[in-house]
């Protein structure tokens, strides 16, 4: 198992994602850092947000394990990698309800300075096929107010909270991504960031990556 396979097992579904990446010509973990999230998202059949998260995990794992060819068992390099797995330094998952990770978000001031993007258009009934007033009201209650937010937030946890069927939510997210691509404008320069603590349970962390099981051939990488 090389670093790429390890990444796919740790942060995606394993074999299917690995096959897709290798099919696209990716051979090493470090290569993922240089791939556009949009292209990665296309390869993995995942949302751009998931692709960005995946790239970030790839970057971290690459730093941690070193992106070298896998050592042979019993070799000197393998023995050098032999410290107790349990002792490896990573904070444990927080219990449910506790803050578990920090996500960089633009500051309010930076958000105001940014040029308005069509993908940040507020959600309204009829804007996307299948988007009705009830769905808009449900999602607004959970801070999903724009097309972009819908494209990035659709997942099992949002489905559970809003009561919108999971498959319908994925369909809406697909339409939102399509809408965002059709109305895309060049990205503004990176904004200064503040650290915002996002509360999430361990389940929520993985549920976000879960795609419908009924069609494994077209399921996303995190199914």
């Amino acid at each position, binding site marked *: *198992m090389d670093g790429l396979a390890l990444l796919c097992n*740790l942060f995606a579904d394993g*074999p299917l994602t690995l096959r897709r990446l290798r099919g696209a010509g990716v051979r090493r973990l470090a290569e993922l850092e240089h791939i556009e999230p949009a292209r990665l998202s296309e390869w993995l059949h995942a949302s751009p947000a998931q692709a960005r998260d995946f790239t970030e995990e790839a970057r971290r794992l690459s730093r941690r*394990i070193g992106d070298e060819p*896998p*050592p*042979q*068992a019993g070799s000197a390099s393998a023995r050098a990698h*032999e410290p107790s797995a349990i002792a490896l330094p990573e904070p444990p998952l927080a219990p449910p309800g506790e803050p578990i990770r920090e996500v960089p978000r633009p500051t309010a001031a930076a958000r105001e300075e940014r040029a308005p993007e069509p993908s940040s258009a507020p959600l309204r009934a009829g804007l996307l096929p299948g988007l009705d007033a009830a769905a808009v009201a449900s999602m607004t209650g959970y801070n999903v107010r724009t097309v972009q937010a819908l494209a990035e937030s659709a997942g099992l946890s949002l489905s559970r909270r809003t009561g919108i069927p999971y498959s319908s939510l994925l369909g809406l997210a697909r339409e939102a991504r399509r809408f965002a691509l059709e109305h895309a404008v060049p990205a503004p320069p990176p904004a200064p960031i503040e650290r915002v603590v996002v509360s999430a349970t361990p389940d929520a962390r993985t549920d976000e990556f879960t795609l419908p099981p009924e069609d494994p051939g077209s399921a996303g990488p995190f199914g």
Partner: protein
Amino acid sequence: MKTLALVNQKGGCGKTTTAVNLAGALAARGERVLVVDLDPQAHATMALSVAVERDERSLSDVLLRGTSLRETLRAAPGGIVLAPSTLELAEFEEAAGRTLNPERVLAQALQELATDFDFALLDCPPRADGVLTANALRACDLLVLVVEMGAFALQGAFKALPIFEELAEDMDKRFELHVVGTMFDRKAELARELLIGTQARFGARLFDTVVHQSSRLREAAASGVPVQVLDPFCRAARDFEALAEEVCALRSDPALALSYTH
């Protein structure tokens, strides 16, 4: 025929589950697969819903009384052929003391089936230093160390390795070692850390495929069928499909093919 022995010093790490479901996945690919249940607890036999009646032959007849292995073979679900086990197999440990070269019996018995099957999977008992496991080591081309991604599993695997190396040295035999991770729960921090540690230790010898924890596997075992029969589209079936693909790829690996001769 390529022979894989699924081993670990520890019980409950998924050896039988891996043997049965890997066999199911290989059979689903059109390979001719034999499962040899070398465990006196006969879990693989039960997991393939085979019952051995009093007048029927089993692996203990082969090892204790020199019966032909072909006479014991039973058709099992999923297109698998099984050499079943019974509790009587435990007597072989004691009888081995009175037998010349007891660790060679299975290898000789398998020879008559060499052209009848593409793969033989040997499901070993949870004891690395017993004569049954020694038979598996003698007969196998590829040693597959099954490592559960849970507490103490990796340490158990490290402890088993010297025993296998010593046995191989005693037998003057070279075999390839590969490792498969089982019962992986991606949500569990410990499991993720163990996988990283296992990859660091075994590198290319660790299969790319990790078998995830799955209720479907438990249901399949309870139903007496491989998971491919129970639910061919579930996560566990896909895991074993990917593992079978890797095993088949190893067969065509020239480096490994060299080590198959012994």
